[in-house]
């Protein structure tokens, strides 16, 4: 993440990236707290440390572009513009949540914001993204879909089938692999002989690229290029974003399968701090600007939590609705 790159952009744009990344971090940290406190139901998969992938990719998309997501969807949703209130209500099982309390953490989504309800079956959302790309192509709209999935998902048959069909039909789909080096507790080196997942692209005759997923601008630029290729009918593209979750896989995971020094190294390289350090090298940004953003975001999350906690629950009658259209 160079101080040169950072000069190419408007201040507002850069601070916007910072703000959205910090929103994700703060959201996740508060949710973790609520969860450990025992007031939040369910199980959660969080993305602390991976904020740059969600924000970098989604910033390269238009409002009417789409994303699909996984069991770890909070960051993607916030980055695509799903409101923190509607998400927190959902996490608390409230009837006014983005899925009326029927989805929960693993199925967060909001089609009005361009996000399909997340698919928690690993790899299971990938063919859907191909289908969305097919719809865009058949309808001749200029929309693009970015489909997030993990390193672990690339071992699933659904990945293979979905990406191959997007390739043969030249569909506008950006396949975004967030390689955080672990699928649950299993290191990626145990599940593929390849050095990098972007090399899988060769098996489908499409372009693949490995990017520093903790560098939000690098992600943004790679995503922009990929999105443009897709809009130009030159898709699909496979983007591998190398990152790390600096929290557990789910729930109360102590991550004992990760070497301590690896964990420390990545913690020191987490994307928000790193971006902040580069940001302040600009003449027109100082630590105070960042601090102001952070405290404003903290306020946003605090009040969203308040909304979430006090949202009305569904009634038992709601159990039977929304099965059929």
């Amino acid at each position: 993440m160079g101080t040169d790159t950072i000069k190419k952009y408007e201040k507002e744009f850069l601070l916007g990236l910072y703000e959205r990344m910090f929103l994700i971090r703060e959201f996740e940290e508060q949710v973790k707290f609520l969860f450990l406190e025992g007031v939040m139901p369910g199980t959660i998969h969080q993305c602390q440390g991976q904020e740059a992938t969600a924000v970098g990719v989604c910033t390269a998309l238009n409002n009417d572009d789409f994303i699909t997501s996984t069991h770890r969807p909070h960051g993607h949703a916030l980055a695509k513009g799903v409101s923190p209130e509607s998400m927190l209500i959902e996490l608390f099982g409230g009837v006014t949540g983005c899925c009326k309390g029927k989805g929960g953490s693993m199925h967060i989504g909001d089609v009005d914001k361009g996000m399909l309800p997340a698919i928690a079956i690993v790899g299971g959302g990938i063919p859907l993204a191909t289908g969305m790309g097919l719809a865009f192509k058949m309808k001749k709209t200029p929309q693009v879909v970015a489909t997030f999935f993990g390193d672990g998902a690339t071992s699933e048959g659904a990945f293979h089938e979905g990406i191959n069909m997007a390739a043969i039909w030249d569909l506008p789909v950006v396949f975004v692999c967030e390689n955080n080096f672990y699928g649950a507790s299993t290191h990626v080196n145990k599940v593929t002989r390849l050095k990098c997942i972007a090399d899988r692209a060769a098996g489908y005759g499409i372009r693949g690229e490995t990017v520093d997923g903790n560098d939000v601008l690098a992600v943004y630029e790679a995503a922009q290029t990929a999105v443009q290729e897709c809009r130009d009918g030159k898709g699909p593209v496979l983007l591998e974003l190398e990152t790390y979750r600096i929290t557990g896989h789910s729930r109360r995971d102590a991550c004992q399968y990760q070497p301590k020094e690896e964990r420390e190294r990545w913690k020191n390289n987490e994307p928000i701090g790193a971006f902040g350090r580069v940001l302040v090298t600009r003449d027109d940004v100082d630590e105070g600007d960042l601090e102001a953003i952070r405290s404003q975001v903290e306020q946003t999350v605090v009040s969203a939590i308040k909304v979430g906690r006090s949202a009305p629950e569904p009634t038992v009658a709601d159990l039977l609705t929304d099965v059929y259209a």
Partner: protein
Amino acid sequence: MKRMSIAEALREGIAEEMARDEAVFCIGEDISVPGGWGGAFTVTLGLEKLFPDRMIDTPIAEAGFFGVSVGAAVMGMRPIADVQYGDFLLCAMDQIHSNASMLRYMSGGTVKVPMVMRAPVGATGRGAQHARSTERFFVGTPGIKVVAVSTAYDAKGMLKAAVRDDNPVMIFEHKLLYGSKGARAESGAVDATSEIPEGDYTVPLDKAAVRREGSDVTIIGWLLMAHLAASAAESLAAEGVEADVIDARSLSPFDYDTIGASVRKTGRVVIVEEGPKTGGVSAELAAGIAERFSDSLKAPVVRVASPDVPVPFAPVLENAYRPDPPRIIAAVHGLMR
């Protein structure tokens, strides 16, 4: 009016719906290859000439193209996904069950998945893996509607209703009923042709059909078994036993109005199913009838089904596997005793 086979009627229904609505498209393996067969049973033969951009031949990747259909449907398209054999639905099971059927509910009703799935079933001399009656895996799946078509009239009408429905609809078809011709003809095929009226019509997805009226016993079947039930009923009539024959047709939900009216009249029920007895569709039907109409039942519901074995290859075994009129008649005799 013109007489059509199920394959022809489906083809005409698909063509009409594609002409009516640009969002409708077909997707599947070998469905529109020039010089090919129009799917495994000729249903989509030649449609690529009419709709060159909306006939999508896929790689052999069922999970993939069912998932693709779900994604396209959510974005406003109306895919008709064609699986060559109902057995291969098992390859796509996760996409159908986890995504197609549940997305609407998980999204709190903000998403809809208007897709049609077409699957040929039935034992037809091909051995165990191209022979299963896979209705059982989808009946009772919340979020999916399931129908089974046994006449050309129903095939066209239900196909059209399914395309217009805003939910995932699975249509089961039977290999021996298609009336596929030429090189794709099936030995042992049964005539399921109908007079097809001119112009648009639909057949509701939630109504059973009474194929024959009688007051002594109710025989319920679907697909090939609806035909065999009717033929058994003719033989029974010759001995003075008059059967109501119901083509259950809508398997999810069942039409308990039609079924109930018959049960209240006859008090005796035989359900005929191709496929292993245990855990089949007729288990639900038998339990559902017993729950609703036990006061009218003169005897427990009888299920005539295949034994609990995979489908064997040898013709003599396959014929013994498939319920047939003699077994249906014997069951009725047992009930009338």
